[in-house]
């Protein structure tokens, strides 16, 4: 499974990539593979304030629906509207074009509480 080293991870399989004072959020390669064909994404509203661990979006595959959680507390500042037309971007490019929303964290230091790539790799192996 592909796990880029430039970003943070949650045990619930979201990734968070810092960009300036915001973070991009999506789901990992492992998560998209486990879900199978993604066919619908329910995006959050821009401007919504969320707590860490709060369900923010929903990714639906042919077989199941899965909540996507906010990795840290903050405000949703942008959503990936391309997913409305092409939800399969999550399968095709989970770490790039398949990003889901952009968050402005209440405190960027909260990211330090997340897993790094090797920590996520270990969590996956422990869970497997």
């Amino acid at each position, binding site marked *: 499974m592909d796990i880029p080293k430039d970003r943070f991870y949650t045990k619930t399989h979201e990734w968070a990539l810092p960009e300036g004072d915001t973070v991009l959020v999506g789901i990992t390669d492992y998560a998209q593979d486990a879900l199978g064909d993604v066919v619908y994404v329910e995006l959050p509203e821009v401007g919504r304030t969320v707590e860490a661990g709060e369900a923010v979006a929903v990714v639906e595959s042919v*077989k199941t629906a899965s909540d996507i959680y906010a990795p840290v507390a903050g405000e949703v500042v942008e959503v990936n509207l391309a997913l409305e037309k092409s939800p399969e971007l999550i399968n095709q490019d989970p770490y790039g074009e398949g990003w889901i929303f952009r968050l402005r964290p209440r405190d960027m230091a909260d990211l330090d509480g997340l897993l790094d790539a090797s920590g996520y790799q270990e969590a996956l192996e422990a869970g497997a």
Partner: protein
Amino acid sequence: MKETPLYQAHLRRGGRMVEFAGYALPLQYTSIKEEHLAVRRGAGVFDVSHMGEFFIRGEEALAFLQWVTVNDVGRLRVGRAQYSMLPNEKGGVVDDIYLYRLGEGEYLMVVNAANIAKDWAHLKALAQGFRVELLDRSEATALLALQGPKAEKVLQALTDQDLSQRKKNDVFRAEVAGKEALLARTGYTGEDGFELFLAPEDAEAVFEALLEGGAVPCGLGARDTLRLEAGFPLYGHELTDDTNPLCTPWAWVVKREKAFLGKEAMLNAPCGERLIGLVLETGIPREGYPVLSGEERVGRVTSGGFSPLLEKGIALAYVAEGAEGPFFVEVRGRKVPASLSPLPFVPLK
């Protein structure tokens, strides 16, 4: 977990294995969508060896089957198959089944995997009063389903029998890839296709031959999305021990002119609800989601999912008999407009 004769073949081909009715079976090999579309546009093959096979024979096999099923077995000629249901005493459904007439006084009943033990006990108890022999060959039978518009072409290359002469619901013996098989032009996808009953030791060779002939291996995921698009019932969802089949779109299967177990109860029970097909503009309906008319909850989704052909969420749902649309489905707290759809959801052969 039990393994079918194709277990190793599934692993070798990258099947993502899950537990279903006590068996380890592939949910998918590559992608449910891809496998679904392969069956709608080409040919796909499913391992359905988990299904139950009961052989029923004897002098009173016909009389017995007339009593324990709702369709008219008297109309079933040798070499033909019919869809039917096993009624219970209160007019509900023990299981939905396929019945094949193999010869004079010789029948094969295919039952749902999850219901094998229940159906067997039910039939054995009812067989007491009849000169009939029942044989459960579920464990000793492998079953493949080859489905899709190209199914005949794929299978024709492996057998000497002229398949173009075989109609829907025909059942016959043939050699396939050098192995003895019982073939039936039946299936559960809404497409043309064949089901192949095989000895367990022959299953893998035939499976591989079908794949080499151009069929795509398909898993349980595609089997469910295909049957949902086709508007077919799934036992435990649209049909249960408490469902009156006369109150479903499959009421045609009940032949009122014959006697059968629970007939009076079935004829006298009020319906109270009806089954409808719904197509959603956004979101995916799942089993158990509420169906609303205005603000009022009038029903529930019994099977829901994504239609790869329509690229929309579709659902079978029971709603209160008098309930009128427009309907909505409550999808994870959101009220989503749902339009009524005739069944099947997509045009089929």
